[in-house]
């Protein structure tokens, strides 16, 4: 049986499952909205027996021949009995949360023993952009000049150099929702701003540590889907549209940026492969920029990035490739 941990809505997962069905391979999909209801773990002479029950689903790790960590999580509702001293109950709640966190970590570690695509382990999956930039450099890839500042004068000094810089999030994109007049609004933004625009806002002398990177004049952007040492690359000519010069996700008509199939030079492919190996990932989406001065510059890796866009525009059949990999593992 093939285990898939996923989010409830994910086209790529549905498409891969269609292929698993075609191969007549049994699978179990657990979405992040589903909670574990009971757990039975027992130590054996060489390993562990691990059995989980979710609503309407049973998972025995002995049956799992291959595993795809796509997104999502293993979740358990942490509840503390009502009544009693609130201050003590709160501390008890924190303690039980800690207990679950360790158990969850153990479950993911055991899952990592199974042949898999992706990796649910926190330290690998919660990709740290700064650590990964450092690692990419160690592997011989170019990275943008990067600073973290918390004082306005440092930002101004950079501005005075006359070179272009952008402000960028250290973690993931920010998503917010709010209610107004009976409607709920939702906005997710990853958009990067220029340093001038940043300074034109009301910035105090001290601010929260913020990431600043040199703005690279790009010829095109590159999206690379990496799967078990194979690289599937696509170039995005986002500079065609003025509005997307800083970040192509700002494009109003998604999909309108010109995309074209791309073959990376072998030297760059080798460096990316080395980077993924050191990071312990056999699957992920890597963003690079090809600069106008001819350099390939690594930006970031997303271990669970969307790939159907790359697959469709380049006819890479990535959904088939993922399903075939799971088939070969099992």
């Amino acid at each position, binding site marked *: 049986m093939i285990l898939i941990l996923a989010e409830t809505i994910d086209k790529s997962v549905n*498409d891969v499952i*269609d*292929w698993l*069905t*075609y191969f007549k391979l049994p699978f179990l999909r657990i979405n992040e909205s589903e909670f574990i209801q009971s757990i039975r773990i027992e130590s054996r002479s060489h390993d562990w027996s691990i059995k989980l029950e979710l609503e309407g689903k049973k998972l025995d790790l002995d049956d799992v021949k291959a595993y795809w960590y796509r997104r999502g999580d293993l979740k358990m509702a942490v509840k503390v009995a009502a009544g009693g001293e609130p201050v003590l109950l709160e501390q008890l709640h924190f303690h039980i949360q800690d207990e679950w966190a360790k158990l969850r970590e153990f479950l993911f570690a055991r899952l990592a023993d199974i042949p898999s695509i992706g990796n649910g382990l926190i330290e690998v999956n919660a990709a740290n952009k700064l650590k990964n930039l450092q690692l990419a450099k160690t592997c011989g890839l170019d990275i943008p000049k990067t600073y973290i500042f918390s004082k306005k004068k440092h930002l101004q000094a950079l501005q005075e150099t006359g070179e272009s810089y952008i402000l960028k999030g250290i973690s993931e994109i920010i998503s917010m929702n709010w209610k107004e007049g009976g409607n709920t609004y939702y906005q997710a933004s990853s958009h990067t701003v220029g340093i001038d625009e940043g300074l034109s806002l009301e910035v105090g002398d001290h601010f929260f540590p913020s990431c600043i990177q040199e703005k690279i004049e790009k010829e095109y952007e590159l999206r690379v889907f990496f799967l078990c040492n194979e690289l599937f690359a696509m*170039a995005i*000519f986002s500079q*065609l549209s003025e509005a997307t010069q800083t970040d192509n996700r700002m494009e109003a008509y998604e*999909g*309108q940026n*010109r*995309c*074209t*199939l*791309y*073959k*990376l*030079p072998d030297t760059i492919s080798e460096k990316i492969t080395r980077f993924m190996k050191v990071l312990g990932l056999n699957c992920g989406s890597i963003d690079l920029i090809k600069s106008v001065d001819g350099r390939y510059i690594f930006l970031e890796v997303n271990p669970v990035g969307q790939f159907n866009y790359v697959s*469709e*525009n*380049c*006819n*890479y*059949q990535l959904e*088939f490739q993922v*399903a075939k990999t799971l088939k070969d593992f099992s």
Partner: protein
Amino acid sequence: MEKNIPILYSCCIPVKGASRSIVCDLQRKSFLYIPNSLYEILTLHRGKRKEEIFQTYDNQYNDTIQEYFDFLVEQEMLFYCDDSERFPKMSMDWMSPAQIQDSIIDIGAESAHDWDHILSQLEGLGCRHIQVRSFVNKSLDFWQELMEKVSEYAIISVEIHMKHGVGLEKESLNSLVQTFPQIFLINVHSSPFTWFAEGFPRRMGNLQFSKVSIDSETHCGVISPSFFIINEKTFTEGWNHNSCLNRKISVDQYGMLKNCPSMVEAFGLANETDFEEVLKKEGFTKLWNINKDQVEVCKSCEFRYICTDCRAYIQNPNDPLSKPAKCNYNPALGKWETVAETSLA
């Protein structure tokens, strides 16, 4: 290095016709007419530097060629690079996890379909899209019950052609469309009036009334530019397979299992047949691999990978590779002789 190698984006694919060519834009779902001379430049001389291309034509047509390139750059179909090795062509392979991709189920006066059997067979083969055509008037209750049944199966989209009659009004059908998000289209044929909602056609949930009558399967097989589909999936499928019959299974109004309801050859009663067994019969899939490169006239048509096909109604019934009978396009002249009447708005 100077960027002087003109390259089409990999989603822009030139197709040559007898009198003119087109570039199919699979990303933006459109196409552009180009002269055959430009087709030659883009394909025969792909990967060459601009100056080399000029020289190939003895520098006689530099201005014209430059104008062509400027035009394609303006259309965002072409760019210049310094290393064509970085920009390979897209693979034209086609594959699908669905053993059956779509199905037509016809309803006549004598039909006695076992819908549960048919739908579960289709679901088992990965079929996600069905078209139901009724040549006779059926009540609103019938359609309501049919859609309730369909909802129990993994069917993503349903296209319904129903004969106009009492009870099938805009209001009642609109509420049917609202209730069942799988409905892609309800076309009420043989209607005394023509009507379709503003914004037609939308992605899903379309309703229209048409005066055109669909009283048997023979209405099918019309070839028209309004049926062109331009995307990566259909283009590569048409490149390799028949753009109508590939991975299709149908039930005609008499309950017979066929590749398409208009075909003569039948493969048993749908109500009593295991569909997967039928797929194994050689005769059932024999037309699936007839792509347009094999069909007379179509093989010289620039629209051949974005157009539909029909193997049931052909110009010469004795030649299975002859042109669809209901196509009025003449690729040698680049002209539609007359505009075909279709039932779709």
